């Protein structure tokens, strides 16, 4: 017969979880949590933007996107620590190489999976493998340590009455919204942008107009990976980064895209902000270790009951 197990708790953090939070939360704490959540959500939108393009518009389930965000963060770290380049500038500089990387990755995906007809199983496993390989390569080249960047605005806050806005959250928020706005303008105004929108709606019609859908998709996928470079620089401004951190964002980013409605940028932004606010409040008032689970709490009911999301087409 098996003997009884003996369980031991190593660390003694037996403090009553509720004891501290029994009192009424003070309103300025709630306001601060909500504002912090909005800023956090703005950053989530930068991560989710690439997935909104790749998955929402091109139907490419790029699970490895967060790994490219982390790769962007490490590239920013290298540029910042060796040349002293500002993290945001570094992120923008990296968009070029990342764009090319994205185009190449799409070419590979297209030749191996898309052109062979529908192969969702292999395609998903392919991107999962890329996620994993990127992570291990980062560990092998840059080490498994946490890295961070230097900039004048990191560690400084803007104080508005009882409201505290740290610049390390405010700057990413502004950059993220700017990037979202710029891409939205590009997609609706320029010829190429409209072709990208067209390829997400009707591939055949685009072909009949004499535009190659594969070329347009490669371009769009390149753009989606390029946004990961910027998102990576924002990530490393917000918090120190280590290679496996990307996984935490897969659930969040896909939840934001699905909740927002596939292919809708503004829906995705709203969803990201809702996600950010909820996470911030739960972390502040309850326990930060629950934060990663919140995305799932949004994702599952959305998939089950409202698959069109907030502002999107039905799946």
């Amino acid at each position, binding site marked *: 017969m098996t003997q009884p197990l003996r*369980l031991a708790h190593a660390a003694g953090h037996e403090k009553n979880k509720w004891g501290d939070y029994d009192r009424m939360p003070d309103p300025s704490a709630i306001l601060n949590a909500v504002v912090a959540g909005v800023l956090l959500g703005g950053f989530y939108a930068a991560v989710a933007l690439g997935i909104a393009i790749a998955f929402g518009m091109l139907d490419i389930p790029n699970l490895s996107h967060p790994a490219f965000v982390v790769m962007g963060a490490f590239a920013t770290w290298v540029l910042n620590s060796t040349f002293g380049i500002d993290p945001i500038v570094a992120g923008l500089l990296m968009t070029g190489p990342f764009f090319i990387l994205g185009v190449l990755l799409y070419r590979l995906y297209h030749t191996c999976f898309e052109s062979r007809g529908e192969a969702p199983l292999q395609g998903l496993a392919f991107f999962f493998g890329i996620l994993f390989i990127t992570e291990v390569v980062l560990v092998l080249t840059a080490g498994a340590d946490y890295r961070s960047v230097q900039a004048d605005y990191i560690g400084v806050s803007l104080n508005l009455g009882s409201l505290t806005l740290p610049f390390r959250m405010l700057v990413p928020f502004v950059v993220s919204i700017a990037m979202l706005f710029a891409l939205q303008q590009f997609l609706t105004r320029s010829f190429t942008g409209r072709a990208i929108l067209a390829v997400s709606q009707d591939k055949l019609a685009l072909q009949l107009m004499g535009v190659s859908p594969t070329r347009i998709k490669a371009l769009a996928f390149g753009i989606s990976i390029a946004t990961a470079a910027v998102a990576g620089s924002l990530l490393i401004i917000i918090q120190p980064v280590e290679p496996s951190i990307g996984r935490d964002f897969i659930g969040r980013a896909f939840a934001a895209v699905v909740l927002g409605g596939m292919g809708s940028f503004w829906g995705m932004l709203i969803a990201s902000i809702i996600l950010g606010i909820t996470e911030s409040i739960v972390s502040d008032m309850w326990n930060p270790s*629950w934060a990663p689970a919140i995305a799932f709490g949004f994702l599952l009911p959305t998939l089950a009951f409202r698959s069109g999301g907030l502002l999107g087409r039905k799946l």
Partner: protein
Amino acid sequence: MSNLRFWACGLLLVLTGWLLGRLVSNEYAFFAGYSVLQYILLATAWNILGGYAGYVNFGTAAFFALGAYVSVALNKMYALPLPVLIVAGGVASGLVGLLMGSLTLKLRGVFFSIATLALAIVSQAVITNWEYVGGASGAYVLRPRMGPLGGSYIEYLFYTMLVMAVAAVALARTIERSKVGYGLSAIRDDELAAEASGVPTLKLKLLATVASGTLMGMAGAPLPFYVAYLDPPSAFNLAYAVNTIAMPLVGGTGTWIGPVLGAILLTVVQETAMVTISSAANLLIVGLLMVGFITLAPNGIVGMVRSLREGRK
């Protein structure tokens, strides 16, 4: 392989394993053997849904760790024998599979996959906050010295896993050759056409998800005794998910033998790489092999052997 031959082989394998076990005195052989068998079981379980129906489950770690933690919790409460814990772990994971499946299987497969990915994250958060089973700091499990059948406890764990692995492969093979299996492959090839020709797609997908989840939970239940110390980061290790997907893809997804071949090959490669290179490199090898196989040989080793045979004719 005919039915009779398959069952005879399976029975023979269990008996040889047992006899060999009686002869071996080196404990390491049991540890290594257990690890191979555990992956055969996990890969076979994954393949029932992933290989036959084409629905990719990224949440192996969730089902597997749930089995392990149910077994930790139940053992703390009642000190039950291992087979009971295995059944309990299987039931718990099967129920989670049923719930997940009924919420997400109506949509395209990719949404199911994303939901399973998120499931792994959320269940890790739940376990991390569950103080009864050790929470974030982990649980120490006292492994009994002797197994109930004589011999060391690790030897007993090895036999248990051997029986489960053989049974799972037999189950997968039975499913593959039954009406259910044909229905599942119809779903994989063209779900719309399958639905139109009267295949009860949702019911079959749910069945496959529950079967697959149950087997994964059963695979996890003996884990606490095997590792003796279990904490969330190791129970939910991404390596489980990657390996479980890589093994059927490398071996070949359409048949029961594929995951078995893949599991043996990849575990041997990893054990070798762990000793000769480093543990980070061995994960890289798995990732590269997986991506290499799906891009260059989508039907895995089984497919390569098949095309070689056909070429010779």
